[in-house]
């Protein structure tokens, strides 16, 4: 019964599937042409490059000093993940457990950095960081990336904490546990899965965050995505293939992070806060 139902699709269904397939084919083409070109010797026209080589990768690695760029990228990303969890989770806990006058104002404060586009607040932020001589340094980039990350942690963690039964904490207090033990031995282990999910989401977002890093980074504090942009935008002296090799390295790292992320979170969580 199920089989026959699946085979007799209506025209509307066909149209919908055709649209999805068309979209995915284009996405595949966009990614595929970059990947194929990164292994090619020259590719001026036609369906595929004239020959294949892997030398683009070594030349990209040396030309763009990717070892240093990767180190900086991971330093920045992990610092942002750690700091945003440290600052965001306690705030999420308070917001989830208490209702107090002015709660809406605090929620608004935490939603604004998600809502306002990074370019719009990034320019004043970069100006301020230049004033304090922090722009261009690793510290400046980390500070800038905290702005969207802390609210993101707050908004991912609040519903997660709300679903943890407060009676567990009350029971622990009844048994005489001081605040330190309640937080350390009851709340923290229960929060760990949520913190892991939020941390991975922040990791993915920071790794791909272009605008803020671009506005605040200097030559020694560029992340991979920013040096990719600079390479593309100042193309001409570099071969297109080594830029593509760099793009593939970026895509590869991003996909690894994505695969890890999807083991722990639902795809819809990547775009919206958890709605369950």
């Amino acid at each position: 019964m199920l089989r026959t139902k699946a085979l007799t699709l209506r025209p509307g269904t066909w149209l919908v599937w055709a649209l999805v397939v068309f979209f995915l084919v284009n996405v595949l083409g966009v990614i595929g042409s970059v990947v194929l070109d990164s292994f090619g010797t020259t590719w001026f026209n036609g369906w595929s490059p004239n020959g294949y080589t892997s030398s683009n990768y070594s030349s990209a690695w040396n030309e763009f000093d990717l070892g240093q760029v990767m180190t900086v990228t991971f330093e920045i990303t992990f610092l942002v993940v750690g700091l945003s969890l440290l600052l965001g989770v306690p705030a999420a806990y308070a917001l989830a457990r208490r209702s107090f006058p002015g709660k809406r104002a605090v929620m608004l404060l935490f939603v604004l950095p998600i809502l306002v586009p990074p370019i719009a607040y990034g320019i004043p932020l970069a100006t301020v960081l230049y004033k304090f001589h922090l722009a261009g340094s690793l510290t400046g980039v980390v500070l800038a990336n905290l702005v969207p990350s802390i609210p993101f942690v707050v908004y991912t963690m609040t519903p997660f904490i709300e679903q943890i039964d407060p009676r567990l904490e009350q029971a622990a207090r009844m048994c005489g546990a001081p605040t330190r033990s309640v937080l350390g031995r009851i709340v923290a282990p229960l929060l760990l899965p949520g913190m892991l999910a939020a941390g991975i989401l922040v990791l993915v977002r920071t790794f791909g965050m272009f605008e803020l890093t671009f506005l605040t980074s200097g030559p020694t504090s560029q992340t991979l995505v920013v040096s990719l942009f600079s390479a593309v935008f100042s193309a001409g002296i570099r071969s297109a293939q080594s830029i593509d090799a760099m793009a593939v390295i970026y895509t590869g790292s991003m996909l690894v992070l994505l695969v890890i992320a999807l083991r722990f979170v639902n795809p819809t969580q990547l775009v919206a806060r958890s709605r369950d």
Partner: protein
Amino acid sequence: MSALAAAPPRPALRHRLAEHGVDRTLLLMLPGIVAIAALFCYPFVYGLGLSFQPSKGGVFGAYRSFFGDSFSSGTIATTFGLAIPSSLINVGLSVPISYRMRGDFRGKRLLLTLLVVPITLGTVLTAEGILEFFGPVGWFNLTLQKLGLVSAGAPMKLINDYWGVLFSLIISGFPFAFLLTHSYLSGIHPALEKAAATLGAGWWQRFRFVTFPLLLPGLLTTFCLTFVLGFSVFPSAMMVGDPDGKTHVISIEAYEQALQNFDYPQGCADAMIMTGLMLAVIALAMGIRALFYSGSTGGKG
């Protein structure tokens, strides 16, 4: 006697505050609030103040020079010209597609995962791919030639133009809009539609009078979020667009003023204009949203 006649002592301030939910737990919010205040609110206020102190032209000099120069004020039309069509296309396409896919079917999680990929790749990589795929000798134009839709010598000019940027906004924005719409749709309880079906409603009536009205508030939110994405388009407008002409959007203008000409007051003024316009559009959409029913949808949403 006298002790009984006296009014009961007022509870301590701490207890009265605790009744309203104010206690030491709230101190946990302090580090987060301080960080956001220092890194988001202060720069914003500072930038707003700076935008009123241009090097010349008095208090409103920076704003006057933005609106006085047709090249910079033209960015507003350019930006809306990209953001409105792209968000309409993204939301418009995600409604029928997610409506069709609201049930469970095999490979649904795989499809959702595939759709997440373009979001996480980010705009820079998408732009780099678009440069090659939609370029004059890219696979897209080659396919069109094979199908005989364009002649071999005259490929469609898609990159370094308006269309390349629009494509990049659709490639990164559509999955976003789809996943949001999908999660809103799955929050509408299927029993509502079944009830309409028992009363004899066809699929169009069920969609038009049951699902769509319940979905509308969510759609407006989705529209806002994709609009913000399109409105702040920056890397792809620089890379696949025509940054000095057809895709000279407001974010490029602000960036060039602040970090290329080092005219911080002008750059901040442009950023403030950008934020103001964006908030106006969001306020409009939220105002429309308030007109519709947005109560319980009976689902998990």
